[in-house]
């Protein structure tokens, strides 16, 4: 276990931003942190990275107590804050050198490490250009390069692909997978369900300052089996009234009827009866069951 959080709380005036949360993260794991806006994700991340102090609770990161040894912890972690920018009046290379200086990397070592990460993120050829002319995706890749240049054991990322172009997002996602294979631990806050599902081994869902659940993405899905959707495509338009007494319709889209259910049997029976009773006037063209996406799981859990 490389991160252990116990009863962490933070208030801003009367607002309880984080309300006594506890969780842990294992070495080499990609841990997703999901929740709606205002859930307390960024406040939690800022406490974990030493930007703000918690009102109560404890954070043990990489064997150090964040309260007592924040500098030691910061030497060994990398952070990509949500709205962080590189210095736009400097070149990419100057930004890297300033970052190296803050992590005690000097001379040849700093140059070699900087060149290596800039190459990884496809920025080496643009290293002597001022960041002012970079796209949002390039700036974010540079911020990631700056966060990784000192080879941190633990990486915190706050919405790292938010609003980026597809190429930059893919480069970042691929790099995160590669880092995880190198036994680096990654703490990722995101709104992007696809990203969370693809990358994270475990996901914590937070709402109103509390952690509602922590589990693997597939387990989270299984906990919401009730969200199963059945999509039935008829050969003609059918109204919910036509199906009254057979099945309860949730939505109609043209010839398609959508039913949300916990158990498939009554739907199948209802549809069979409806077809039989129509005496050949109505036919079913297709019948699909759709398992819930992580996004639907997230919405259901965070609303509940």
């Amino acid at each position: 276990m490389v991160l252990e959080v116990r009863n962490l709380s933070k208030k801003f005036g009367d607002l309880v931003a984080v309300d006594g949360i506890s969780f842990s993260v294992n070495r080499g794991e990609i841990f997703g942190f999901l929740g709606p806006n205002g859930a307390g994700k960024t406040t939690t991340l800022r406490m974990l990275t030493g930007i703000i102090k918690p009102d109560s609770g404890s954070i043990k990161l990489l064997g150090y107590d964040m309260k007592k040894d924040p500098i030691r912890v910061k030497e060994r972690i990398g952070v990509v804050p949500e709205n962080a920018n590189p210095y736009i009046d400097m070149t990419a290379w100057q930004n890297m050198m300033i970052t190296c200086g803050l992590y005690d990397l000097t001379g040849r070592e700093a140059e070699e490490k900087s060149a290596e990460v800039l190459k990884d993120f496809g920025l080496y050829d643009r290293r002597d250009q001022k960041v002012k002319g970079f796209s949002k995706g390039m700036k974010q890749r540079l911020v990631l390069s700056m966060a990784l240049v000192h080879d941190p054991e633990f990486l915190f990322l706050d919405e790292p692909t938010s609003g980026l172009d597809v190429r930059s997002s893919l480069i970042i996602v691929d790099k995160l997978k590669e880092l995880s294979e190198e036994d680096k631990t990654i703490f990722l806050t995101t709104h992007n369900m696809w990203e969370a599902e693809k990358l994270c081994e475990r996901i914590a869902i937070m709402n109103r300052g509390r952690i509602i659940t922590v589990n693997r993405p597939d387990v989270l899905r299984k906990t919401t089996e009730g969200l199963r959707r059945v999509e039935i495509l008829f050969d003609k338009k059918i109204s919910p009234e036509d199906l009254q007494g057979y099945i309860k319709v949730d939505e109609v889209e043209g010839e398609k009827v959508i039913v949300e259910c916990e158990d498939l049997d009554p739907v199948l029976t209802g549809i069979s009866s409806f077809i039989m009773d129509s005496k050949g006037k109505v036919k079913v063209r297709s019948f699909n069951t759709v398992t819930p996406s992580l996004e639907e799981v997230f919405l259901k859990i965070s609303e509940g």
Partner: protein
Amino acid sequence: MGQLSRSMTIVRKNMVIYYLKGPVIIFGVLIPAFFFLAFIMGRKDLPLSFLMAGLTSMTVFFTATSVSPVIMPWEAQMNTLERLIVSPISTASLLMGDVISSVIFSLLITLIPLALTMILRVTITDIPIFFLSVLISAICFSALGMVMAAPKTNIPSNIMMLASLIKFPLVFISGIFVPIEAMPPWGLLIASISPLTYLMDAVRYSLGGYHHYPLAMDMGMLLIFTAIFSVVAVKLHSRNIPRRI
């Protein structure tokens, strides 16, 4: 050693980014120059050594308080501050980096009045005191600049406005335009609470002119003000930096 080298990294960053920013040039170089020109045109009766002491003191004061107040709000506004504070640098070291870069800027610009002093053949009778008082004052005023930067606004112009409200009155009460020996007792009392008074007094002495306070008091007061401003700056910024983000 780690924290010191991190402070020096901050210095390098500030030199590249902030030395040529518009407000730094306007408040640090142009304003003292205009003040001086307006002043010498109106007071041709005063000795040259007094005028040069005034120009030197004003330059140190304005330059040292032009860089340090803008850095914090600028960093916060440009979203670069959060990256800095997640790195392993303490608040004191971060501020020390800002102060050192401000001191270097101040000393570089102060070479201009120094050159002018030599061109006008005003003799520096006590060279060590001249340089020592300028150096301590540059540190003192840079630390004052950091105190001015403490309010948690992320708009540099707000800080510049607030800084002007403090800086301009100090120039008028510190014996730069009205010699301290010509001040009434209440004026002397007010002058004694300004650190700029002690720089002006020490520089006047080193240029062979009148000085009101004992030299040890000039230096001692500058050091005391430096210590107070430094402690206050660290305390205020430690509290306010997280609120800027």
